[in-house]
Structure formats: C-alpha cells, structure tokens
C-alpha cells in the first residue's frame, strides 16, 4: 500500500505545482511528498527485511535490492528537495530564473522521483522500461533548465542517446519474453514469470538479449562507451538535479540490468554476464580516471567520477561473491557521497557562478564549511578511511585478485591516476588566493545541512549497519 501512497503523493505534488502559484505552498508540498516517500520506503524496507519479498498487489513487487533502492531514492530525494528550495531561491535572487521555472522545476522533480520509484517497485519488466523512459522525459527539461545553448545541447544529446539506448534495451527486454512463448503474449508477465520460465530460454537468445539489455540500460547507467551523454547532462543541469541523476538514477538503471542478469545466468551461466560486466567496468574506470586527470570543469569532474563508481559497482557484481556484497554497500555509500559532492559543488557554483576549476580559488576562505564538505566528500569518494568506501574498494579488489589479478592491478593503477587528478583539482579549488570580487561567507545554512547530513550518514553507516539493512544486503548477495 505504501507504494501507491508514495506514488500518488508525488503525482499530487506535481499537480499542485501545476495549479497553484504560491511558491511556499509548492515547496512545502514537495518536501512533504519526498518526506512521505522516505518514511514509506523505510517501512517497506523493514517489511522486506523481515518477511521477504513485498508485493501488495500483482503489479508491485519489491525484493531486497528494490527496497534498498527505495531507501536510496527516498533519502537522497528528500535531501535534494530540501536543498533545491534554497538553491532555487538563490537563483531567483540572482535573477536567473522566475516563478514559472520554479513551478516547472518542482513539477518535473516530483514526476522524476515518482518515475524512479515505479521503476524499482513495479513487477513488470515492460513497465519498468516505461518508467525508465519516463525518467528520461521528465529530466530532459530539467537539464535544459537554464535554457542556455549549451544546456540545450546537453539536453538534446541526453534525449537522443538515451532514447536510442533504451529502445535497444526494450528490444532486449522483449527478447526475454520468448521464454514465455507467443501464447503468453496477452497475459501479464512479471519478473518472477520470466525467472521461472528462464529455463525455456535458448542460451544464445539469452546472451543476445542480455547484450541488448546491458547496452541499452547501460547507456542510462553511464557505462563507457555509452556514457557520452552523462558528463554533458550532469554539468549543465542544476546541481540538485545532477546530484539526483548520478546519485540515484544511474543506480536505478543498473538495478534493472542486474534483474536481467540473474535471469540470463540461469541458462547462459554466470561467467558470461560477469565477464561482460567486468569488461564494461574496466573501460569505465580507466577512461573516467584518465579524463579526470586533465579535467577543467568541476561538475564534469564529478560526472566522470560517477562513471568510475558505476564501473566499480559493475566490477563488484562481475567478480561476484563478496564483490556483490561490497558493490551493494558501495552503491549505498556512493549514492550519498556523490549527491553530497554535487550539492557542495552547487553551493560553490552559486558563490563563484562558474563551473571552471580555474575560476574557483580559495574556497576555504569564502566557503569554509562547504570546502570541508568538498574535501570530506573527495576522500570518501576516493576510498580513504574512515569512510566505508575504502572497505568496499578493498573487498572488491580482494575478490578480484583471486579471479582476475591483472584486471585488479589495472584498476588499482587507474585508481591512483584518478586520485592524483582529483586531488589536484580539489586543491586548486579549495586553497589559493581568493578572487577579489568574491565576498566571504556561506550562502545559507540550508545549502550546508543536506550534504552534511548525507556525508554524516555515510560515515555512520561505514561503522554501523542497521540490522535490517544488514539483512537486506545479505539477501541481495544470496540472490544476485
């Protein structure tokens, strides 16, 4: 029931956003809806952790991974909604945007969140596809939010590339239905039916289907070489949207791939899918690391870092075993840390009104707290203790050393390059001489609290895992 509640609440919020003209009301209801969603997700998650798969009606079914995703969406979504309010206000004060845009923003934001919820909760692969496509459609205008030529360019690339990718994914999805046979065409087919009928799938078809799915949804998840839209979109969208895109949306798309992976493994054997994942992971990590080394734009930098982290996730699932455990953990940490980073970057952008690293100097003086957050986020994302990412990195690598020592070594090297590059840019931004025209002082407390909370929770989770989360993760490991 909670799911319906959540979704409908979002829809209501969106409609309110369409109708009313009081800014406060719109903001309020958006926050309320995201809060409701968060609480609902927690309830669902606890339910799932205690009593297996949660499926109030045939249309919805949430397994462990799904509930983890719900938690991520809910938590990050809430934080970002809170952040967005202050962010947009600052933009309005600057005279960059007007009320209509604010309305548009919140409408689309709510739709976006709703679509993501649908994608992870629905039991129908086709409907999952529809909702993923819906996320594309709802975010397209958010990416072109500032309505500048470059923003438009980013949005266009986002739209076209993702549509192509998703159409391929759609074909792949349908190919899985061959197992059910032409007869099943009319009936309503959910993940379990597919899973059950997986044995009827011809191995070769399964492999082809998985390739289509991996490349299709992989486009959305931002694997190299289908990642090309990602840096553009992330760098041009408003900071909170970028945060949502790379913190949550990528993971959502990746989860769909995983759902198909287990179906494929039934007939095609896990080696096949794992090798594919490892190849794409390796590509993503190496390319991202190298590009980060000479990156000039800090939002693009973060975007590439998300690509790298998706690579790490894929690597974890590719290595299997403990790698999966680590990957799930990493997914959770990464979502929070990356969103926090994007928010801090947004605050920096509000202050310096440029995304060029060269333009940003002496942030520690201008934005003391945000700079600390940036630094903390940097250490967290590059896997430095005490952040849990260090442990996940270690676990993934130590699973890898047994199966693919060479791959592991290469990844380690790439991580060094990434760290060096990332560090240089962060240091350039945080330290140095403050430009004269920048006035000292944080913009607003509400721009600091959300990222701070996210990082704090990430740090907390690195030391203590709530039992229900623990159970969920173990459940995931046993399934995927």
């Amino acid at each position, binding site marked *: 029931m909670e799911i319906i509640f959540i979704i409908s609440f979002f829809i209501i919020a969106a409609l309110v956003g369409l109708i009313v003209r009081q800014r406060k009301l719109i903001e309020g209801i958006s926050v309320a809806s995201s809060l409701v969603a968060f609480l609902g997700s927690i309830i669902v998650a606890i339910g799932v952790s205690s009593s297996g798969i949660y499926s109030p009606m045939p249309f919805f079914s949430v397994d462990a991974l799904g509930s983890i995703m719900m938690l991520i969406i809910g938590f990050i979504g809430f934080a970002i909604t809170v952040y967005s309010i202050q962010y947009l206000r600052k933009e309005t004060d600057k005279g960059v945007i007007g009320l209509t845009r604010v309305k548009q923003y919140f409408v689309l934001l709510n739709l976006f969140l709703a679509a993501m919820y649908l994608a992870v909760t629905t039991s*129908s692969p*086709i*409907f999952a596809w*529809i909702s993923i*496509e*819906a996320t594309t*459609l709802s975010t*397209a*205008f958010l990416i*072109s939010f500032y309505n500048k*030529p*470059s923003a*438009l*360019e*980013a*949005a*266009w*690339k986002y*739209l*076209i590339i993702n*549509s*192509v990718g998703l*159409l391929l994914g*759609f*074909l792949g999805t*349908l*190919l899985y*239905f*061959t197992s059910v*046979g*032409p007869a099943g*065409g*009319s*009936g*309503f087919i959910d993940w379990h039916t597919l899973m059950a009928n997986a044995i009827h799938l*011809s191995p*070769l*078809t399964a492999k*082809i289907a998985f390739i289509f799915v991996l490349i299709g949804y992989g486009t959305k998840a931002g694997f190299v070489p289908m990642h090309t839209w990602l*840096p*553009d979109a992330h*760098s*041009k969208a408003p900071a909170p949207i970028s945060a949502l895109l790379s913190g949550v949306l990528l993971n959502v798309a990746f989860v769909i791939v995983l759902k198909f992976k287990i179906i494929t493994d039934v007939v095609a054997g896990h080696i096949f899918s794992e090798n594919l994942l490892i190849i794409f992971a390796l590509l993503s990590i190496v390319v991202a690391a190298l*590009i980060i080394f*000479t*990156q*000039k734009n800090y939002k*693009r930098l973060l975007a590439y870092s998300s690509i790298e982290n998706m690579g790490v996730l894929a690597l974890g699932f590719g290595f299997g075993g403990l790698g999966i455990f680590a990957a799930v953990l990493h997914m959770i940490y990464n979502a929070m840390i990356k969103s926090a980073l994007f928010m801090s970057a947004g605050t920096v952008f509000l202050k310096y009104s440029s995304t060029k690293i060269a333009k940003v100097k002496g942030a520690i003086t201008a934005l003391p707290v945000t700079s600390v957050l940036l630094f903390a986020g940097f250490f967290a994302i590059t896997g430095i203790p005490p952040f849990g990412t260090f442990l996940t990195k270690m676990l993934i690598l130590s699973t890898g050393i047994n199966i693919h020592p060479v791959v592991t070594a290469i990844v380690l090297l790439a991580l060094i390059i990434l760290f060096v590059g990332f560090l240089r840019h962060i240091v350039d931004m945080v330290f140095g001489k403050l430009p004269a025209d920048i006035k000292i002082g944080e913009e607003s407390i509400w721009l600091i609290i959300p990222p701070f909370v996210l990082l704090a929770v990430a740090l907390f989770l690195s030391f203590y895992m709530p039992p229900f989360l623990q159970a969920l993760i173990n459940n995931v490991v046993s399934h995927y």
Partner: protein
Amino acid sequence: MNILILQFLLGTIFLTLVFLHLSKKNLSAAIVYGIQSAAVIVILFNSFLETHSIYLLLLVLLTLVIKIILAPLFFIRLIKKHELSFSASTYLNTPLTLIVISVLTFVAHSQKLAPLTNIIPANNTLLSLALSAIFISLFLIVNRKGALSQIIGVLSLENSIVAFVVFAGLEQSPALQAGILFNIFIWIIIATVFASMIYEHFGSHDVTSMKKLKG
C-alpha cells in the same frame, strides 16, 4: 492476411527507411514517416484480426492518431515555422550510404543472427527483414545531421522494433502497449520542442553545430 502481404508491408517499412536515408527534403521525410507508420499500423491491425481483442483495436486507432496524424503534423508545422525545406546533409554520400545499408541488410540476414530470426521459424524472412530495418534506422540516426532526421530516425527505430516484436509474437498486453505509446507521444512532443529550440538557439537544425561540450 497471408505472409505475402505482411512481407509487402515490411518491405514498405524497409524501403521507407532507405528513402529516409536518401531524401533531401524534410517535408517528404515527414510524409514518408507517416507511410511507414501506416504500414506498422496495418501490421498491428493484422494481429487484431487474429486476436479480436477490442483493446487492441483501440490501441491501433490510438497509434493511428499519434503516428500518422499528430507526429507528421508536428513535423510539418516545425518545418513551416522555420521554413527548412532542405534537411541537413549526411556524413556518407549516397552510394556509400547504399553500400552500408546493403551490408547491414546482409548482416541482419546472416546465419549468425539465427537465434534472433528463428524465434518463430515461420517468420524467419520477416524477422530478418525487420532486424535489418532496426539496424538501418540506427544507422540513419548515426548518418544524419539534421535534428528532424534524427527524431524520425529514433521513431522509425521504434517502428521497426514494434514490427519485429509483432512478428516474433512478443507483443504485450494492450495496457502496457498503451503505456509505451503514451511514452512515445510525450517523446515526440519533447523532441519537436527541443528541435525548434535548437533552431532558435543555433539558427539551424544541424546538430553538428552543437559541439561546445567536450572532454
């Protein structure tokens, strides 16, 4: 309806795609897309004749409205508004394009792709043709520089996938298909809006003029 007609319809889709590759006029491209969609709709209608589900008929009508009436209309309005009678150029010249198309067609027909084309052995030829249609429409998006052409490319990719799905006997329950259709409809709107915005910002529909975002 017997196999021949279906083959003919699929043939039309295929040929429209080839034409889309060659055509220099946006207007004709829009119209040809309409024809292509018409073929798809007839195929869908055929499956309605098999199943007699009334929802399917509704669906067919909806598709008709969206793909044959609305979509071309949007395009034509777009064209009129910015008077772009001629579409932006392609990367490969006509002969090369044709060569690539033929290569793709052979690839699609090759035995290697049997697992795809033999999903329903009876429809083997149809499926491989549909597959080649898919490839060619992908190639269309790659090859064309005009924004409008890319939109049409994506849409015809969708069309050919639909055709493939129908012949592979994988079509979904009408409800889901309606959802998909709705998606497509929204997509068309957004895409056309973007296209006109592109024209306003860049003064042309040539997407290659958009290469600010690098590295």
